[in-house]
């Protein structure tokens, strides 16, 4: 069913049609533009950087030795007093306090070393009682962002949004046209099949400009997420991602006869990537043996490239490997879709 390369006039007309059909559906526009914005606003504000929480350190009784006063004065330590040793031990075991300091000579610090908070409490207690010399090191506090959770999260949300928009808008549009028998009607014209499929990639690129500008402006200005790479590299990475997910969307929709059928398939494709491609947490938490597999996913490559660019300021050349993965996810699904596409 492949009948040659796209022709420019029909490609332009098909793209215009796609774009108009989309823009004239307010609900579709909402899901593409407003929904990712709301999502990043909620998550972004929820996970914005905060002052680190103080360590909770327990003491037994009304002990008032000098070191207790020093712990009490330290803003990074919250002192919790217990009436009995049994109660204190129970609270420590339950993780309600991070460490216990017992009045002995010398005082004893009790903690559970597998808890990261316990290690932090140990360090703070030692500093507070003067066991560690501050002055041995000079400490400079940085105010530039990049290490907060929201800095990690935002590029992931951007990638997820590029994926969702591409897959949903195209999957639904194709299934709808198939159900309306419009595809069958197009098939009896001399229209090039490749023009039809390519028009989805083209119109996707048109929406991308608006979507990307809106989301990025929000992330940078409202959430303070850095954008350290060049605007060129950032835009190219996003455009590669958007086009790749359009191609994947075409492939997912290439056979489905109904909207319901295509919805199920889209979820099947997207949910694993939400979890495995480092949107909300780094995929490095998965066993190392599956990392190559995860890195071969389009959303992982896109998220890695977006993060490298925004947070680490990676240059264009440094993201070329990710771009290659994303490009492969454009070319292979596109031609596969063209080959197996169901027109009737």
């Amino acid at each position, binding site marked *: 069913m492949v009948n040659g390369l796209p022709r420019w006039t029909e490609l332009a007309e098909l793209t215009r049609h796609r774009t108009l059909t989309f823009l004239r559906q307010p609900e579709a526009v909402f899901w593409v533009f407003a929904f990712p914005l709301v999502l990043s606003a909620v998550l972004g504000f929820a996970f914005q950087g905060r002052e680190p929480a103080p360590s909770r350190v327990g003491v037994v009784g009304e002990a008032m030795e000098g070191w207790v006063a020093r712990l009490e004065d330290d803003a990074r330590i919250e002192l919790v007093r217990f009436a009995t040793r049994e109660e204190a031990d129970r609270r420590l075991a339950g993780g309600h306090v991070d460490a216990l300091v017992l009045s002995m000579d010398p005082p004893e610090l009790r903690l559970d070393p597998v808890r990261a908070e316990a290690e932090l409490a140990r360090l703070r207690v030692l500093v507070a009682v003067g066991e560690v010399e501050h002055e041995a090191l000079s400490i400079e506090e940085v105010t530039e962002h990049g290490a907060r959770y929201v800095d990690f999260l935002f590029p992931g949300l951007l990638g997820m949004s590029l994926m969702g928009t591409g897959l949903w808008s195209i999957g639904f549009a194709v299934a709808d046209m198939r159900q309306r028998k419009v595809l069958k009607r197009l098939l009896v014209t*001399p229209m090039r099949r490749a023009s039809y499929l390519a028009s989805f990639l083209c119109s996707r690129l048109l929406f991308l400009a608006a979507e990307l500008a809106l989301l990025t402006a929000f992330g940078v200005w409202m959430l303070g997420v850095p954008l350290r790479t060049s605007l060129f590299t950032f835009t190219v990475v996003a455009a590669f991602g958007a086009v790749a997910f359009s191609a994947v969307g075409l492939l997912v929709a290439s056979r489905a006869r109904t909207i319901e059928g295509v919805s199920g398939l889209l979820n099947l494709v997207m949910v694993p990537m939400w979890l495995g491609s480092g949107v909300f947490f780094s995929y490095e938490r998965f066993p190392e043996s599956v990392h190559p597999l995860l890195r071969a996913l389009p959303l992982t490559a896109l998220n890695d490239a977006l993060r490298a660019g925004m947070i680490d300021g990676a240059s264009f050349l440094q993201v070329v490997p990710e771009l290659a993965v994303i490009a492969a996810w454009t070319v292979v699904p596109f031609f596969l879709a063209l080959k197996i596409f169901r027109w009737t």
Partner: protein
Amino acid sequence: MLDIDASRLAVRATGLVKRFGSLTAVDGLDLQLARGTCLALLGPNGAGKTTTIEMLEGLVRPDAGEIEILGRSWRSDPEGIRERIGVQLQETRLQEKVTVLETLTLFRSFYREGRDLREVLEVVGLAEKRDARVETLSGGQHQRLSLACALVSRPEILFLDEPTTGLDPQARRRVWEIVEGFKSGGGTVLMTTHYMEEAERLADDVVIVDAGKVIAKGSPAAVIGSLHAESIVELHPRDGTADRLFHGALLSLPGVSEVRAEGAAFTLVVTDTQASVAALLAHLSEVGVELESLQTHSPTLEDVFVALTGKHLRDG
């Protein structure tokens, strides 16, 4: 239908067969259509009309048989055929959010050559609706837009699959006028329909199909003439007296060539209306049958179909 000089043929199909699983939808069908004429495939739902026309349009691949459209075959020159045909499918629902003109502009862009879109809009009577969204069109307007999409390329052949099904009589007549306009410009039309009046009005030739086979073909007059009937008499006896009428008695009346019982009613195919009706009335009073109604009409394609198959066209 006479064999036509090959160079004057717009469509030639021989021995078409299409099976869907164990069902044979089209079973060895032959068609010939001369340029500048209109052929109607007439038959009930499920007769294989749509499958046949979709094979001719290149949408369905036949399991056997040959198709030539304007001297070209689908295998060797599909683009050449698509550039020269206009198609209206059954049940296409065009995109709703775009306007009439945007829809036509899109279809126009698929063809190398075509017509001025304003002219097409005039032809189908949608000039005033050019900026209306497709979703606001009535059923008849949507159907005319669908026809316009088939006409943008100035096609040599128009394929219409049940072009007026579901339309009210006025909308139907407007579609007929558009098709007649296309014909008068020298265009060739191949259509399917299950409305005999549509076939009688538009078609130079009809092909009556049933169960995937051609059961009659020729001009509407010739096909109707094959009944050898002057008129059709429909007889509805009043309740309670119908059992006094017998098939054999009616058939033995002068000029009656065929009798068919449908429930309490009888349909008579007669060759001499005056003699038959006179004899019929005499017979009715003789056996004591009272009439609910008695109607005579000139034979139609519907009557031919019923005579050949025992079924009505619209029974499906």
